[in-house]
């Protein structure tokens, strides 16, 4: 069974939600951060105008699966949450249908500026959809839904519930019933099955059930559908429609004003009396009147006796869904027409110059191809370039260009922002403060002082040792006590090379008071053990930072890579940095990915150092490729041969280089 369904905006406000069990908001939050903001899970192939939920890969977050879809121009997200154990065949359909209905009903309200309020009385529509889809799925395969049913006790059958119902006032009762009669006959007219005799007695029962617990009601309807003698679904649905009528006299409301309101909506309506009673009563009355007019026109009609009656929900929903389908077919048909295409081509050309054109996939295709080539020229790996372009395309389809704005300019802007987004780190990357927090924790916190361990990995010959000594130099300038550990016990000369670096660093920083030592155990030892010993040694000798150099290894050699997991376990590094050279092209994605997964399930890379950036000029695409592959930020870039040629990554600089055209 569904756990929860939420409709929220991109600005984070939940417009409507319905939950059957209490779920933590962090589930949806993690969907938003991972899928929408950080784009961790690559969206599927679908980049059409409106992506159906079936094309969006489901997002899994401990025990729960989330199905989602979006409406871009309104900034809406529709999320359905359910237990991963369950197999709900109709969930895609539900999400899609709900999206269509919601947009159709409340699209106008959503376009209003400067407000987050959307008055929606959506419960009925949602329940109707759930019932309908459950019914259809039940007909298809009863077993899957049966297993999905909640372990709730089925509610007692009609007579008892009848007795439970509080006796309404006589006048009210007769009125409500006359309404019901009308309602039932109306719904019976529209629904194919159903006998009036059966549906009437179930009505009050259904009312109570919906009041109590939704799952029970739906379960009941399922049961009822199994036994053809009782046609409960019509009872259920009229019950939900009946509710407002029952409320009306208690609350002393006008029919015209609150046709669809029920208890929950009562509070919502109160919000519209502007917060903190700001607007005067006159405004409020006007508001109410306005709402009433809309309500009446769209949702109901008056009977001859002046009683307010709602339109049949099924009918309305179906008409919304079919009209949406028809619109889709329509748009497809018009675009194929010869005359239409000719006219639109001319109009398109004109608008291309003037602006105000709604972008379609065809408009974008050529320009996107150019952008992709441009990125490839900048040494961005093909995979990353395609992803970036698809992202931009998805963002732009259906968007109107501004006045005198060409498609190219629009793409340029969108690409800039998506490059910026991909390169900007999620959290701050201030290495010095992180070291301070570990190596000299504040006395208030209960952490013990220990050295900060940084280890450096990478493919052969990318500059691991060089960058390690650059970082060492930077740390020494900030007066840390640094231990350099030679864990490359494999390549001949590696330890000596580090020894030379350490000697140089000593000479360079001796005057400024930096302290640096080399820890080495010669060749042939197990690197993980050496690293572990070095960390304990550093803790004893009160070093602030331990820099561990490792042997270079080919990223697709399983034998070499597997030793990294043990290494991470033994050395427990605070930061694992991978050095990648800016010269490498397409392979950068595979390198980053393999190294990122090499440290076991609960450890990954913490950052990249992109070396040799000075040798590639503008072609700094490797930055993007590596971040794209792993979502790990770039910590430093190497820009020269000297110890001081290490820089923080400036996102602005990188984006400028990537988009510059020469």
């Amino acid at each position: 069974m569904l756990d929860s369904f939420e409709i929220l905006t991109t600005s984070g406000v939940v417009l409507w939600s319905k939950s059957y069990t209490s779920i933590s908001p962090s589930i949806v939050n993690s969907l938003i951060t991972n899928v929408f903001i950080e784009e961790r899970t690559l969206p599927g192939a679908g980049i059409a105008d409106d992506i159906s939920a079936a094309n969006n890969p489901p997002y899994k977050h401990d025990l729960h699966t989330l199905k989602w879809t979006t409406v871009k121009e309104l900034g809406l997200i529709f999320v359905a949450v359910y237990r991963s154990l369950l197999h709900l065949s109709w969930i895609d359909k539900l999400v899609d249908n709900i999206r269509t209905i919601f947009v159709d009903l409340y699209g106008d309200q959503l376009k209003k500026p400067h407000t987050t309020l959307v008055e929606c009385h959506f419960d009925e529509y949602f329940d109707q959809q759930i019932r309908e889809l459950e019914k259809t799925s039940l007909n298809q395969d009863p077993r899957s839904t049966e297993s999905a049913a909640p372990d709730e006790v089925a509610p007692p059958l009609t007579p008892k519930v009848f007795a439970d119902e509080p006796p309404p006032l006589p006048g009210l009762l007769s009125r409500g019933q006359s309404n019901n009669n009308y309602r039932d006959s109306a719904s019976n007219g529209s629904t194919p099955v159903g006998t009036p005799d059966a549906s009437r007695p179930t009505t009050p029962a259904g009312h109570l059930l919906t009041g109590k617990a939704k799952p029970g009601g739906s379960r009941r309807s399922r049961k009822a559908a199994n036994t053809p003698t009782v046609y409960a679904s019509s009872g259920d649905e009229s019950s939900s429609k009946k509710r407002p009528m029952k409320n009306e006299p208690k609350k002393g409301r006008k029919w015209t004003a609150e046709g669809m309101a029920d208890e929950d909506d009562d509070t919502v309506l109160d919000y519209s009396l502007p917060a903190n009673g700001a607007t005067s009563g006159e405004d409020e009355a006007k508001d109410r009147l306005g709402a009433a007019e809309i309500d009446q026109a769209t949702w109901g009609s008056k009977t001859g006796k002046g009683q307010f009656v709602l339109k049949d929900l099924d009918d309305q929903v179906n008409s919304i869904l079919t009209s949406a389908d028809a619109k889709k077919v329509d748009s497809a048909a018009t675009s194929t027409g010869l005359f239409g295409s000719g006219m639109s081509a001319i109009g398109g050309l004109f608008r291309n110059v003037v602006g105000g054109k709604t972008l379609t996939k065809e408009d974008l295709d050529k320009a996107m191809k150019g952008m992709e080539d441009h990125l490839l020229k900048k040494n961005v790996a093909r995979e990353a370039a395609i992803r970036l372009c698809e992202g931009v395309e998805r963002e732009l389809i259906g968007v109107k260009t501004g006045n005198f704005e060409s498609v190219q300019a629009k793409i340029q802007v969108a690409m800039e922002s998506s490059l910026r987004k991909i390169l900007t780190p999620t959290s701050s990357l201030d290495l010095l403060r992180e070291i301070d927090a570990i190596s000299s924790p504040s006395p208030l916190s209960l952490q013990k002082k220990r050295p900060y361990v940084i280890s450096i990995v990478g493919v052969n010959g990318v500059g691991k040792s060089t960058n390690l000594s650059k970082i060492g130099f930077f740390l020494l300038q900030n007066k840390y006590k640094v231990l350099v550990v030679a864990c490359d016990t494999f390549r001949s000369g590696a330890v000596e090379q580090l020894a030379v670096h350490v000697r140089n660093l000593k000479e360079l920083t001796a005057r400024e008071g930096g302290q640096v030592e080399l820890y080495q155990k010669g060749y042939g030892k197990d690197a993980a053990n050496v690293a572990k010993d070095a960390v304990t040694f550093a803790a004893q000798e009160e070093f602030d930072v331990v820099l561990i150099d490792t042997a270079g290894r080919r990223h697709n050699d399983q034998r070499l890579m597997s030793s990294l997991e043990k290494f991470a376990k033994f050395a427990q590094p605070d930061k694992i940095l991978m050095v990648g050279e800016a010269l490498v092209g397409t392979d950068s994605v595979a390198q980053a990915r393999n190294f990122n997964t090499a440290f076991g399930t609960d450890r990954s890379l913490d950052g990249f150092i992109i070396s040799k950036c000075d040798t590639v000029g503008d072609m700094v695409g490797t930055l993007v490729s590596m971040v794209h592959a792993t979502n790990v930020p770039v910590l430093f870039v190497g820009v020269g041969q000297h110890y001081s040629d290490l820089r923080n990554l400036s996102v602005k600089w990188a984006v400028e280089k990537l988009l510059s055209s020469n």
Partner: protein
Amino acid sequence: MASTSDWAQALLSPSPLGLVIAILLAISIPLFLHSVVFRASGLTTLPSILLIGPSDSGKTSLLTLFERGTNASTHTSQAPISVECSLPVSNTAGSDKYRSAHDPTNQAHKKFLLIDTPGHGKLRHHALDNLTNPQNLKGLIFIVDAATLSAGDEGLRQTADYLHDTLLILQKRMAGNKALKALKDLPVLIAANKMDLFTALPAALVKSTLESEITKVRVSRSKGLLDSGIGMDEGADDEKDDWLGEVGSQDFKFYQMEEFDVTVEVIGGNVTGGEGPTVEKWWSWISERL
């Protein structure tokens, strides 16, 4: 010769075409002038207050609370949103201070725009764009989660970083950019949210913790590496005066920002309406700024 005199005659003769053009000009010029002048000076935008702060500190919750008067459930924001709010009845705007109590304009409640920004690290440029491109900005509310600010906490580091960056932008607006000079005297409210939680620090402690953490931030920023791009091309227009607050001072204090016309206040409250201080004081802070 004949042609010139013909031309002169044609020009000066009372032709219907000339008449039409003259009438059109006579009518359209005032209209045109009117539209230009009023387009420039008119368009009074509502005063706006910017909400800023790290993710999950309660910005959108506060926004919905101020708009609707009750809480709404919210999730992580991805896009900024601006919402029209009005002051509650009990608060009078600072600009209405000298009006008599019976002034009918007091009945109309002061409206303002509240701009919410996403707090996620990758989306902070929205907030910073709003800061550098202000439209009648009257104040800045920096919301912090007081329950995550204990010493050595990751939340404290992130919050201090963001606050440091924000204040630095405000400080720099004095130095260079002409557009930014327009917003003089920008007050900042550090709203210590989630005071209803047991682990929340009181407002005074929030202030001192943030101050000491910002001290650390600016020290480590000054010692940190240069950004890429500075050494590589001649675009080194960023002179290195990224020191927040008083130059040469040992510790950072919020009052140092007053030199740059930025007054910083720390007030506690909670959005959810639990125990402890509520949003009342934040309302009155806003009303004083309008």
